[in-house]
C-alpha cells in the first residue's frame, strides 16, 4: 500500500481559533484533517474535543452546551470538557470506554492553540512567540481567512516579499523590494530573511504611516525581517525610519529605530486539509497606540492586501492540481521558503513510522525449539 507523505507534522501547536471566536457556543473546525468542536467553559477556559460522538459518530457540534458539558444531539449522551461521557440514556452506569478525544489546548497571544499529535509531547513552552498581538507596547488586530490552498503556499508567499512589488503595487509594493538584496539564514526550527532598503522613497502605505505618526515626509530606510518558525508561523518585522538616522544594524549591534515606525505582520497558517488552510493574521504597530480608528483602518487595509494574495494562492493551487507531476524550478528569491520547507519536511519525517515491512517466514522454516521457556 503506497501512502503519500503527509504535508504537515501533527506534533505541533496549531492556531485553531481567534480568542473572540470561542464563546459559550459549540464551534466546529477542521484542523490537520481532524474534526474538532470547541467551546468556552464557565470558568473561561477553552475545551477542544473530537467532533464525533463515541456512540454513533454524529458531530457533537450539532448538540448543545449546558454548563461545561456537551449533550449529543442524537441520543443525548453527555460529555464533560475532558471528553469523558457522564450520562448514558436508559442505564444506571456509564460504559467505561465511552470517551471522545480531548485535545491539549493553550490560549496565548490571542489564539487558541491545539496540539493534534501525541498529547504526551504537548509542551506549552513550544507555542510560537506572537506576543506583539497582546502586548501593551503594541496595538493592532487581525482576522482569520480560510484559503483554498496548501498551507505551505501561504508560507512560501510570506517568505518572499518580492511579490509585494507585483501583487501589492498600490500599497506596500515598490520596485526597491524586488531589486534589493537579501540575506536568508536558518536555525534548527526557524528561517529568517532580512532585507534593508536604504535611502528610498517610502511606498504609499508607509509614506502615510510615518507622516501620520511623525509628520515626516522624505526618504526612508525600510526593513523587512521575515522569521519563519516551523511548521507554520511567520512573524514579519517591518517598518521605515527617517533615512540616515541609524535604523539599520551596524557592526552586529541593533540599529536605532527611534525615528521610525515599526509594525509586525503576524501570521500563523493552520492546515485544514491538504488543499486548504486557516490563515490567522494580525498587524501590530508601536506608534499611535491610542488611536482605535487607526487600528480599524489598518486591519481593514491589510485585509484588502491579503485578499490580493488569496486570489493568487488559490489560482496557484488550482494550477498545481492541474499539473500533478510538475516540479518547481527554484530561484534565488526562493531561499527563504526553501529553508522553511526543509524545516517542515524534517518535522514530518520525524513522525513517519520507523517500522519497515518485515516479511513473515512460515513457522515451518524456523529452526527454533518448540518451547524455550
Amino acid at each position, binding site marked *: 500500500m503506497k501512502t503519500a507523505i503527509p504535508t504537515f507534522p501533527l506534533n505541533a501547536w496549531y492556531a485553531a481559533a481567534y480568542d473572540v471566536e470561542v464563546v459559550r457556543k459549540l464551534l466546529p473546525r477542521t484542523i490537520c484533517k481532524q474534526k474538532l468542536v470547541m467551546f468556552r467553559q464557565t470558568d473561561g477556559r477553552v475545551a477542544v474535543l473530537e467532533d464525533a460522538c463515541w456512540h454513533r459518530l454524529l458531530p457533537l457540534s450539532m448538540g448543545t452546551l449546558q454548563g461545561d458539558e456537551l449533550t449529543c444531539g442524537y441520543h443525548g449522551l453527555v460529555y464533560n470538557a475532558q471528553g469523558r461521557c457522564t450520562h448514558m440514556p436508559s*442505564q444506571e452506569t456509564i*460504559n467505561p470506554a465511552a470517551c471522545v478525544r*480531548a485535545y491539549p489546548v493553550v490560549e496565548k497571544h490571542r489564539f487558541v492553540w491545539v496540539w493534534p499529535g501525541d498529547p504526551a509531547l*504537548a509542551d506549552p513552552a513550544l507555542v510560537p512567540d506572537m506576543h506583539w498581538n497582546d502586548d501593551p507596547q503594541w496595538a493592532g488586530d487581525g482576522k482569520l481567512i480560510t484559503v483554498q490552498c496548501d498551507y505551505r503556499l501561504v508560507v512560501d508567499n510570506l517568505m518572499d516579499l518580492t511579490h509585494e512589488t507585483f501583487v501589492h503595487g498600490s500599497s506596500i509594493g515598490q520596485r526597491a523590494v524586488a531589486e534589493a538584496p537579501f540575506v536568508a539564514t536558518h536555525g534548527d526550527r526557524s528561517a529568517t530573511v532580512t532585507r534593508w532598503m536604504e535611502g528610498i522613497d517610502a511606498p504609499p502605505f508607509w509614506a502615510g504611516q510615518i507622516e501620520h505618526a511623525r509628520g515626516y515626509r522624505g526618504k526612508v530606510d525600510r526593513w523587512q525581517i521575515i522569521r519563519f518558525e516551523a511548521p507554520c508561523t511567520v512573524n514579519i518585522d517591518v517598518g521605515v525610519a527617517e533615512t540616515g538616522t541609524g535604523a539599520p544594524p551596524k557592526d552586529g549591534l541593533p540599529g536605532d529605530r527611534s525615528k521610525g515606525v515599526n509594525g509586525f505582520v503576524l501570521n500563523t497558517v493552520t492546515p485544514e486539509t491538504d488543499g486548504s488552510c486557516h490563515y490567522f493574521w494580525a498587524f501590530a504597530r508601536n506608534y499611535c497606540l491610542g488611536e482605535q480608528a487607526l487600528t480599524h483602518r489598518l486591519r481593514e487595509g491589510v485585509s484588502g492586501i491579503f485578499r490580493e494574495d488569496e486570489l493568487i494562492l488559490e489560482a496557484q493551487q488550482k494550477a498545481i492540481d492541474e499539473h500533478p507531476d510538475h516540479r518547481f524550478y527554484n530561484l534565488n528569491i526562493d531561499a527563504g521558503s526553501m529553508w522553511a520547507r526543509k524545516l517542515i519536511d524534517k518535522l514530518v519525517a520525524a513522525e513517519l513510522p520507523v517500522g519497515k515491512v518485515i516479511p*513473515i517466514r512460515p513457522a515451518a522454516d*524456523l529452526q527454533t525449539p518448540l518451547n*524455550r521457556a
Partner: protein
Amino acid sequence: MKSNSTWTDALLASFEDLTPSVREFRLRPEGGVLPHAPGSHLQLEVQIKGRPHLRSYSLVGEPDGQTYRIAVKRLDQGRGGSLAMWQLPVGARLRVSAPQNHFALDFNAPAYLLVAGGIGITPLLRMAHTLAQRSAAGGRPVRMLYGARTTDELAFLAELQTQLGEQLRTVVGAAMDFAAEITALPAGGQMYVCGPAPMLDAARSAWLAAGRPEADLRFETFGSSGASAPQAFRVQMPRHGLDITVPADCSLLEALEQAGVEQLYDCQRGECGLCALDVLALDGTIDHRDVFLSAHEKQQNTRLCACVSRVAGSITLDSAWRPEP
C-alpha cells in the same frame, strides 16, 4: 478511540515468562506496527478446541516499532484463551487486529492515581511510564498502587520501581487502602483502575465515598475475574424448554448460544449490557462480574450479564424471544 476491524497476520517472534503465571509475547505483524496510545489493546484470534475465538490483550511497554508486546496470565480455570496462548510455539502465526483503545489516558488531568490488580497491570504499564516521564519533566504527579497475591506475581516490578520510585506502592496478599490514596490525590486528579471485579468495586466505592466525580474514575475490566472461582452451574429457561449445565470453562453466553438461544451481545467484557438477561428465579448466588449494572441493580439480582457473570447454584432465566402471534 474508535473501534476498527483491520486484521493482519502476525508471527510469534519470542516469549518470556515474567512470573510463574504471566508470559510476555512479542508478535511481529505483517506490514509493521501501527502507532498506539497508552491503554490500547489488540484482539487476537486464538484456537480453542479447534474453533477460533477472539481475545483482547493490552499492549505493554513502549512500542519498539517492530513488535507488539502483550502479557498473558495463565488461567487454568479460565475459558481456554490463555492456555491456548501458552501452548503457542515461537514461529506460530496468528491473526491480530489493529490496536484499539477503550481505556484512553487523558493527558490534561492535574494528577493521577493508577491502580493495578494482578494482570491488570498490563494497560497501566505504559501509562505509568508516560506519566512518570512527564512528571519528572515538571508537575502532574503520578502514583501507582499495584497489588498481587504473592510477590513473585508482581510482573514488571523492576521497571515500575525504576520509573516510579517512591510513587509505587505494592500490596501483596492484602486489601488496598484506597481511601488514604484517594485523599492524597490532588483535586481534579483522575484514578485509572484495572484489576479483578471485586477490587474495582472496592476502588469505586472508596472513590464515590470520597466525593470524587464519577467521570474522573477510569477503568477497564477483563471480565474473567469474579468474587469466586468459576464453577459449573445449572440454567433453566422455561420459554425455550431448556435445562442445561454451564461448564466451568464456558461462559453463560456461549453455553446459551450453543443451546440455540439467540442473544444480542457486543463487548463481551461486561460493559455494554446488551447481553443482560432477566432472572426469574435463583437458588444460590450470582457472581456479577460486569460493570454495566449498578451496585443496587446487582443487589436486586433481577438481571445478569451473560457474557461474564456466573452463578453458584442454579438459576432460571428469560430471554428476549417472544413467539409470533
